[in-house]
């Protein structure tokens, strides 16, 4: 059970004093949460990169198609 003396109520109090507590949490970050966050972010970067690539390729292909149709046909073509 966390035991603490009354917490300071003002911003000045929080920035100018630290009060000891006993029985506080020994771990500040969960390994599971960090692991899952890392995997999710890595896959999000990869998927975002792939999505941007396919989208841009489709836009370039579309514009190239329009230009190729608009260009006058060469007599030898």
């Amino acid at each position, binding site marked *: 059970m966390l035991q603490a003396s009354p917490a300071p109520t003002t911003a000045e109090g929080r920035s100018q004093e630290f009060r000891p507590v006993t029985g506080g949490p020994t771990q*500040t*970050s969960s*390994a*599971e949460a*960090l*692991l899952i*966050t*890392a*995997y999710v*972010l*890595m896959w999000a*970067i*990869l998927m975002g*990169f*792939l999505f941007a*690539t396919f989208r*841009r*390729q489709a836009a*370039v*292909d579309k*514009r*190239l198609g*329009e*230009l*190729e149709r*608009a*260009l006058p046909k060469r007599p030898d073509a």
Partner: protein
Amino acid sequence: MRSRGLIVGVWAVTALTFFALILFVFLKVPEAQPQAGGLAQKIFYFHVPAAYALYLCGGVCFIGSALYLAGPTDARDAWAKAGAECASAFGGMVMVSGPLWAKKAWGVYWTWDPRLTSLLLSILIYVAIVLVRNFMGSGDAERKFAAAFGILGTAVLPIVHFSVQLWGGNHPRVLKANGGEGIKDPAMIQALLGGFFAMTLLAALLLTLRANLAISQARLVRAEELAPDTNG
């Protein structure tokens, strides 16, 4: 048509490899000691291969850039550009996964360790190349400027790699343990090798996609020069 089938096949193998690897890492690979991050150490099996993929893409950027400076062609420029873009993407993966592991193992997300600092510098160089190419156009001067930057970015990579041996720091060196035991568990080694294999396939695919895109963009620029009245 045949090359399209080959690419689809490589995509399928890559996706299956990643799927199998994730299952293997979560179900079979044992948790590391608490000082190494405990469960969070499992980030390592994708973090280290992503860093290796960054080196691969940096190498492609270096070769493409050097060849472009020696004799400019659209294809050489496309591979240099693709290398820098993929190196930035893999750099992003390394930079988000590493600090999350560090938070558990070191208690902080970031420290100005020689490996972390030199890697950040290298990634920023690749990001600078991407920004230059996206926002300053694709003229010959911009391409040459980016190529020079591509050579510089990859020249930093050996410094990144050997920074731990040269200057120490907090970053682990389990792959070539210096005084420690390295990786002892066979499942951990298998997972890491699987990660290297999967990231090699992924890097090859991404590089091919981005190089094809860059070549198409160069074709588009030339086609627009020939048909200026079709804009819009």
